[in-house]
């Protein structure tokens, strides 16, 4: 009986989490179209339901009834497999994200490495899709994406090392708890900036959306995809935005801790608000930033993108690690010297 109960519990947890993620992914597309519309002095979708709120539903129904086309000379097995791979690697990341005090599915002691491993696997979905489509646009999009993801993964991984050094743990829950005194953003602004930019590059979002630069590559790796398979890539992209936004909130902005610095009376008073709300507020702030950046900045050229990753972010994040190490070693002496 106990095993059945345990399994039922897992299934419910997964169902709730999937519901949350899919709802957010669907309404992120709506929020993005509305916000970008406003930023470009248009209205955006406002016809379907009040304020266009039913637009994601309409889009979903449309995609469901679209014809599912497989190109004639495509590698059929891999062509069908690639969208699933993209989506699954993103969705399993949500298992380790702590949404609030005591609100997580699993607290792995290597959670951060687990997430880095998953983010490195997202390249496969894209590159396999690009190759299996048997189309030059898709292949070029896939190749670009691989180069981009590999390059920015290095910078992203290195930008997270100072966080590990400060918290002394790879568990996301322990990293959040280590920030009860102050957010790591306050002591690691450089790492935070590098992480944020690399995260935009990792999720293939503008201004780093070279894999699907429509002016030169048609649709990039998903040129040949239609219907729900195309939607899978889309959901995966928005879910990945949700993951990296959550990560930014967890690693640098104290997760569910309400204030950047612990103020004895005020922090406890604000702590009465349910902790997931603080966390989600930060996540949505980052998601807004994603959309804002997309509406504001022009796309980088390919060589600019590579130069930024390898010649700027890599050395700066290495120097940052060195400085953080020095700081951690020297800090006790500074305190002793002070008084």
């Amino acid at each position, binding site marked *: 009986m106990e095993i059945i109960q345990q399994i039922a519990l897992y299934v419910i947890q997964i169902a709730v989490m999937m519901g949350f993620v899919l709802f957010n992914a669907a309404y992120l597309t709506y929020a993005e179209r509305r916000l970008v519309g406003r930023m470009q002095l248009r209205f955006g979708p406002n016809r379907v339901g009040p304020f266009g709120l039913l637009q994601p539903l309409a889009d979903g129904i449309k995609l469901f009834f679209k014809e599912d086309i497989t190109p004639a000379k495509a*590698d059929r097995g891999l062509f069908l497999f690639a969208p699933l791979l993209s989506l699954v690697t993103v969705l399993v990341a949500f298992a380790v994200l702590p949404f609030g005090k005591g609100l997580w599915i699993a607290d792995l*002691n290597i959670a951060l490495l687990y997430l880095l*491993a998953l983010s490195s*696997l997202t390249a496969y979905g894209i590159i396999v899709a690009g190759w299996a489509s048997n189309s030059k646009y898709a292949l070029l999009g896939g190749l670009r994406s691989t180069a981009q993801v590999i390059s920015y993964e290095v910078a992203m991984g290195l930008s997270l090392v100072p966080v590990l050094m400060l918290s002394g743990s790879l568990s996301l829950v322990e990293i959040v708890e280590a920030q009860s005194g102050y957010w790591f953003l306050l002591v690691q602004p450089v790492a935070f900036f590098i992480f944020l930019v690399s995260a935009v590059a990792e999720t293939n979002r503008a201004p780093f959306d070279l894999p699907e630069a429509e002016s030169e590559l048609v649709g990039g790796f998903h040129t040949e995809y239609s219907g729900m398979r195309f939607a899978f890539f889309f959901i995966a992209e928005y879910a990945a935005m949700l993951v990296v936004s959550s990560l930014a909130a967890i690693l640098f902005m104290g997760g569910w801790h309400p204030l950047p610095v612990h103020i004895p009376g005020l922090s406890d008073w604000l702590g009465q608000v349910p902790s997931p709300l603080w966390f989600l507020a930060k996540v949505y702030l980052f998601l807004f930033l994603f959309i804002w950046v997309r509406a504001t900045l022009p796309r980088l050229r390919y060589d600019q993108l590579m130069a930024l990753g390898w010649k700027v972010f890599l050395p700066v994040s290495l120097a940052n690690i060195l400085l953080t190490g020095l700081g951690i070693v020297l800090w006790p002496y500074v305190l002793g010297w002070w008084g």
Partner: protein
Amino acid sequence: MITLVQGLFLYFAAMIVACALVAITRHSAVNAVLAVLLMFFHVAGLYVLLNAEFLAAIQIIVYAGAILVFYLFVVMLLNIRTEELGRRAHPYWPALVLVVAGLAAVFVLLLSRSLFQGTPDQYSIALVQEAGNAQLVSQVLYRDYYLPFEVASVILLVAMIGAVLLARRQWAEE
């Protein structure tokens, strides 16, 4: 009756062998690389089974996430067609058979000698579970064996500088 752990081990072991066989028998290079990817996942599964989840994560990040992506990248850039490779035997196949036989002999020798039996020292399973895998690995690497570790880093550095130098020379000639 086999236990759950034994069952999982058998599954991982069988899949590793099967994926390796698929990888070396495919004519499509991309399919072969993807079979290797599947194999790496099962190797990571074996690590998790051994309470070495840190190694499992590193396995995925380094091998699946970095090295294999590069393989795939190269295979796609060269655009190796299945037909071009053909079905003829490799001209040096007797040498290959010798190498494989030699490796198999070493492997059998190792197994019969049970080199890996070793006495359980301070790093017991209980300690690993309590202190965390990453911490213990770092202690062993950076405290107990820091000299060999540094030597390995220097060797890698030399390889890196060599690669940069070769690329630059080519650049200069152009």
